[in-house]
């Protein structure tokens, strides 16, 4: 791959600019199995993103009936049958861990599948390219039109305007769909149409319209190459077994033109399959030459495979000169051994097991999630108070959580070796010496709880106290342990 370099191209003297001008990429349209997969995944991802806010889920009276909703004002997150409170943020931690491990697993199995097929940057850039191709034509036409910059015709100006308006419309609806996840979607759509939506909605739509338009329309592959940390990270996560989009140079080299190759073959001389047609470069959305080997700029979308397969079919050679392959097989083929693939190996098993383990823990936590909860905080100033009759009193700040969608009556008990009496400041009622509290639905309630131990039961120092709350109607119980302290 040694190229002859003309030193004047290298901007070596001080007069040269401090930057490298971007070389615009003009990906050519291509068809094939990977392109079809990409279309399918694009439709799926965009479909989910744009339509999910409109999915409904009946949660009963007074609760939102949007399937996926981030309810910031009320600090709740709803996902179908799941309702999460802010203090249950560990579910999101779990979700992020699973997401990271899934990314690792995908990487160990098939390289940067995420980059090539699923990453929002890829999906939207691909969509924007499709629009550009539809308005301005394919690679050659676009290159020709861009080259003729000086002579902008009326028709050309119209094309540019049309392209950018379609881009902006997509970007605008992308920002709009984002906002729909944070409030009741149909209501907000109506408010947006009648210009009555809250200012914050317009601001966020504006921000996301701008980012989508700039990232997918203008920055494109530069986001992947210059901004995204994932290519750098994934290089450390891959191994020789991972399938990557690979140019099989053992088969392709020495490359030569189709005519020369035919001649040489006729003479029985060894020659590679690559005919140097540059179709793999023409279709590449990041503008690289896959034949230079694995490289950071390659997002592994597989479009070069489709392009190369088309050419190979046309010239009657075997397809998959470029294909998903691992590092081992190139050397094995050179040694005349059959290729081997190993999806199941310690690395993938480990990732899969970790995903299963974290998933199981999350599922367990979700299924056994308590709908009644109590947190107790011992007052520290003062820790204990001596009353006039010699008894000792400790005060606690108690937070009760009612995660059910209805009000309920709760009794509070304190079990311990001190035979204490309880008093709740502002208690609704007291039945059989138990303070009774009405917990409003789907809220937390903070109480000041006073625990008094009679003089004859004064503990020497600190003794444990178990606080128990009981739902009088359902019998649901939650408890917490703290200490009772003597001065």
């Amino acid at each position, binding site marked *: *791959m*040694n*190229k*002859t*370099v003309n*030193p004047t191209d*290298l*901007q*070596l*003297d*001080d007069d040269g*600019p*401090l*930057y*490298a*001008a*971007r070389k615009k990429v003009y990906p050519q349209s291509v068809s094939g199995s990977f392109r079809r997969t990409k279309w399918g995944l694009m439709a799926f991802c965009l479909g989910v993103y744009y339509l999910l806010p409109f999915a409904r889920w009946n949660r009963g009276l007074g609760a939102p009936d949007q399937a996926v909703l981030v309810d910031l004002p009320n600090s709740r997150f709803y996902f179908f049958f799941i309702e999460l409170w802010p203090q249950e943020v560990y579910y999101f931690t779990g979700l992020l861990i699973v997401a990271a491990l899934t990314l690792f697993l995908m990487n160990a199995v098939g390289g940067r599948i995420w980059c090539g097929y699923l990453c929002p940057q890829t999906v939207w850039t691909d969509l924007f390219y499709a629009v550009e191709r539809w308005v301005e034509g394919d690679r050659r036409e676009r290159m020709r039109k861009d080259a003729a910059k000086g002579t902008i015709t009326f028709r050309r100006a119209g094309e540019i305007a049309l392209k950018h308006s379609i881009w902006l419309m997509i970007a605008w609806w992308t920002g709009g769909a984002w906002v729909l996840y944070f409030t009741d979607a149909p209501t907000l759509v109506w408010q947006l149409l009648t210009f009555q939506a809250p200012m914050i909605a317009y601001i966020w739509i504006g921000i996301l319209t701008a980012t989508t338009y700039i990232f997918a329309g203008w*920055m494109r592959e*530069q986001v992947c190459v*210059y901004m995204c940390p994932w290519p750098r990270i994934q290089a450390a996560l891959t191994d020789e077994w991972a399938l990557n989009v690979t140019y099989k140079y053992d088969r392709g080299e020495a490359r030569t033109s189709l005519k020369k190759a035919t001649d040489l073959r006729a003479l029985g001389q060894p020659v590679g399959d690559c005919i140097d047609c540059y179709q793999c470069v023409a279709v590449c959305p990041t503008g690289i030459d896959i034949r230079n080997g694995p490289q950071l700029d390659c997002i592994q979308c597989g479009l070069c495979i489709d392009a190369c397969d088309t050419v190979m079919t046309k010239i009657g050679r075997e397809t998959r000169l470029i294909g998903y392959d691992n590092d081992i097989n190139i050397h094995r083929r050179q040694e005349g051994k059959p290729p081997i693939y190993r999806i199941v190996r310690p690395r993938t098993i480990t990732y899969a097991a970790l995903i299963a383990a974290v998933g199981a823990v999350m599922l367990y936590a979700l299924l056994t999630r308590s709908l009644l909860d109590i947190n107790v905080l011992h*007052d*520290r*100033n*003062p820790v204990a*108070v*001596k*009353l*006039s*009759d*010699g008894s000792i*009193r400790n*005060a606690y700040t108690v937070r009760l959580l009612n995660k059910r969608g209805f009000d309920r009556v709760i009794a509070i008990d304190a079990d311990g070796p001190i035979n204490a009496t309880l*008093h709740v*400041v*502002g208690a609704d009622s007291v039945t059989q010496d138990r303070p009774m509290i009405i917990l409003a639905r789907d809220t937390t*309630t*903070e109480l*000041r709880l*006073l625990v008094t131990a009679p003089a004859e039961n004064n503990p020497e120092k600190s003794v444990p106290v178990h606080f128990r709350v009981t739902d009088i109607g359902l019998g649901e119980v939650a408890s917490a342990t703290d200490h009772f302290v003597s001065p």
Partner: protein
Amino acid sequence: MTEHSDIDHVSGRATTGHEWDGIKELNTPLPRWWVITFYLTILWAIGYWIVYPAWPLLWSHTTGIWNYSTRAEVATDLANLEKIRGDKMVALGAASLEEIEKNPALLALARARGKTVFGDNCAPCHGSGGAGAKGYPNLNDDEWLWGGSLDQIMQTIQFGARSGHQKAHEGAMLAFGKDGVLKKDEIVTVANYVRSLSGLPTAAGYNAAAGAKIFADNCASCHGENGKGNQELGAPNLTDKIWLYGSDEATLVETISNGRAGVMPAWVGRLDPSTIKALTVYVHSLGGGK
């Protein structure tokens, strides 16, 4: 720049000429938009100098063309806070003390507001949690010099004790020793008698009958015949386990000899009525309120 025109033979590209452990760095210039963004941030910073206060001068600073000031911002925020608080504090002012305690929303508001005001105004003497100190009552317990009902607490907060306000609680412990009313040995005797009232051990050989006599003659008028105290006069109950200044003999002798007259300031006029209400409810809810 000939020393930089070193070309990497693998990639065919120029290197920066820097070399570490035999590894050379390719000269990969930044993309144009990135460089432009960098220059824009510099312009942005210059814009900041012009718009906002930025440069310290010898005795002042550049004020910026917007006359921005964090202090003014805080003042605006505080004014807005008062406005936001307005309705709720009005509701607090309109409700009676008992109503506030029975209404969870008002109780939470009063306790939150009361805690803040307590920290600002009361904590220096009574402690941040109201635990008190020697000479400054613990507000968490159930011993009240001037009464622990909601109304009595509010009365005390509003006008104080011996504060100089005309509605303030008056009444002081007399200085029986300094004023020559009781002799030293009589004071020791009555101090032991007072200890016996709350079940504390007395000194060996102390004359209980003499103590009772001295008490009846000098102390019972304020503290009551049984030493149960009198909240009208702020005379503490001497039979319970709580002692404002301490219950050991030396402290009692000191108290009886020189008297006590701690001062609680009047807060009326310094705190607005609804704030005093919130403070009352907060103190009452500390646990000792009757």
